[in-house]
């Protein structure tokens, strides 16, 4: 298995996913969901992982957390290095210790992600009592602090409320407070704003950005919304069919995408300066993961596709500025800014 080039030299990263392979074994067959994902995260930075549904963003995150459901999901290869040590070789008990204290995660739909029958104060405090060994009184005090930190109004009064008594935005704040309880160094936010109203989305994104800065965490922001990413992320990794197809600094990527898929995504955003014209879309559908096309998995949908794309899987090409693109014609796409 070829190890794709990394835009920064290995070693020294806080979190590093190397050539990760995950498959789902189902009755219908084996779906190759993650096919060699490689990305890294340094202290205090924000990495956005972008891609459409089924591209493997969440599965990669759950593999990092070690919370994949096995069966059906099986990690078939690769490494997940946290502070230089491969998490995949550690025991379940060791991995459990990492969850929450080192790497924490928040999920898309806070209503179903929170336990419906327990008060939110109890759920936030649970980590403090169970993991940090705090007394009830201490945990309660700290819980109120955490709820204040995520800007839940009248936190002390809302400790005893249940998740369904909160609005969507407040629920997501509860989720965030819960994830922050044990001072994690890495926070993985899996589409934290997808289920929310646009105005609330902005508030949550601002909150995450502020918290990341104030607490010095590193943030992995998983999203399918390019608009969400622009203001917050340092770097972007674009995923397609279980691979990172493009990896670049935010500004570089927005200025000139070097992968046809990224280019298609950017062109499909409605823009105020191009009113009247039809919105462009990426034709076709994402591949069936049980039967990924030979060669470049994007070739059936790609306007740049040529014979080589049908025959050869493109490796990551390193472009100027250390950015990478898994496209045979990366330079051409990058230079072709007319579209």
């Amino acid at each position: 298995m070829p190890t794709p080039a990394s835009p920064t030299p290995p070693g020294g990263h806080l979190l590093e996913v190397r050539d990760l392979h995950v498959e789902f074994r189902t009755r219908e067959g084996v779906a190759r969901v993650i096919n060699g994902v490689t990305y890294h995260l340094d202290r205090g930075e924000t990495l956005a992982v972008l891609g459409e549904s089924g591209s493997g963003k969440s599965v990669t995150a759950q593999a990092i957390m070690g919370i994949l459901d096995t069966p059906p999901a099986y990690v078939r290869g690769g490494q997940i290095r946290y502070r230089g040590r491969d998490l995949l070789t550690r025991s379940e008990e060791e991995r459990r210790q990492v969850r929450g204290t080192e790497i924490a995660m928040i999920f898309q739909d806070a209503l179903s992600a929170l336990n419906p029958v327990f008060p939110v104060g109890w759920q936030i405090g649970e980590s403090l009592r169970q993991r940090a060994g705090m007394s009830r009184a201490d945990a309660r005090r700290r819980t109120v602090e955490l709820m204040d930190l995520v800007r839940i109004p009248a936190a002390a009064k809302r400790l005893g409320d249940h998740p369904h008594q909160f609005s969507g935005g407040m629920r997501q704040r509860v989720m965030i407070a819960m994830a922050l309880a044990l001072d994690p160094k890495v926070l993985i936010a899996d589409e934290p704003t997808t289920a929310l109203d646009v105005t609330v989305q902005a508030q949550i994104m601002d909150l995450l950005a502020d918290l990341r800065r104030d607490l010095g965490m590193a943030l992995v922001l998983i999203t399918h919304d390019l608009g969400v990413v622009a203001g917050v992320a340092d770097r972007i990794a674009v995923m397609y069919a279980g691979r990172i197809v493009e990896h670049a600094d935010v500004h570089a990527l927005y200025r000139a995408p070097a992968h046809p898929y990224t280019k298609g995504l950017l062109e499909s955003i409605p823009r105020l300066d191009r009113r009247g014209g039809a919105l462009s879309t990426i034709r076709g559908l994402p591949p069936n993961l049980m039967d990924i096309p030979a060669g470049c998995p994007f070739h059936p949908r790609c306007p740049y596709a040529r014979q080589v794309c049908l025959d050869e899987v493109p490796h990551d090409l390193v472009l100027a500025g250390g950015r990478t693109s898994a496209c045979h014609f990366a330079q051409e796409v990058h230079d072709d800014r007319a579209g």
Partner: protein
Amino acid sequence: MLRFILRRLLQMVLAFFGTTLIVYALMFAGQGDPIQALAGERPVTAAQRAYLTEKYHLDATGVGGFFYRYVNYLGGLLRGDLGQSLTGRQIGDILAAAWPVTVKLALIAMAVTVLFGVTAGVIAAIRRSGVFDHATLVLTLLVLGIPTIVLAPLAQYFLGVRWPIFPPTAGAQPSFRALLLPGIVLGSLSLATALRLTRTSVTENLRADYVRTARSKGLMRRRIVGVHVLRNSLIPVVTFLGVELGNLMSGAIITEGVFNIPGVGFNLFRGIRTEDGPLVVGIVSVLVVVYLLANLVVDVLYAVLDPRIRYE
């Protein structure tokens, strides 16, 4: 919540009048001559006939007479007087003797259900598709498929007569030991249902999103299953158990009959067999109240268990 309970209590009053009226009407509609029925095969003298007609208000005839007697009966009921059975005993006394026995039996059945049904359901769900899961599936289907009228005599014969581990019948003033086998037989059906229900509920909840969240918090699996999953899974199970306890409290005609247990079901059956109208109506009236109360308790319990439920 309080308003909900009050409204339900009002509905209960209506339901109580409705059901007692129907039972009262059905029980006395089919009777030819109640006085002759009372006397059985013996002849009734004119004086006796006059006395009994007076006593049971049989002089008023037709629909008017029926309602007169029904209202008269209800009046007694509200004063706590269930009246006399045709055998001349106070129905209140009969119930006072029978109910504790039935309650004991019901509690044994319920304990068996919770102890084995719920526990086995949880284990089957955690080890889904394992040997235990398949074994319990077969066993529960078997139990659910055999009616009590077959199961009770089988248990009595094998565990009471062939290998006398338990006393085969209970008799008057039954001991705890004598009620054990009937309790297990009675509980086996709810046990099987509780097991299936628990298994399904736990399986569903193990797949819930909040389980993934709990795992991401680094909680131990024991805690995730024992606290997060169980608390959610037991909502439908407890509801079922509540209704089931109401059922069991109202007596088990077949089980009490087979094992000769002088409980409510046993007396009810005897009343039906001997066409003892006052006894049947008396017992059923009280059963209706027990049943309605059990259902109210279940509804309230449901709201307590699931904070998302709000009664207005």
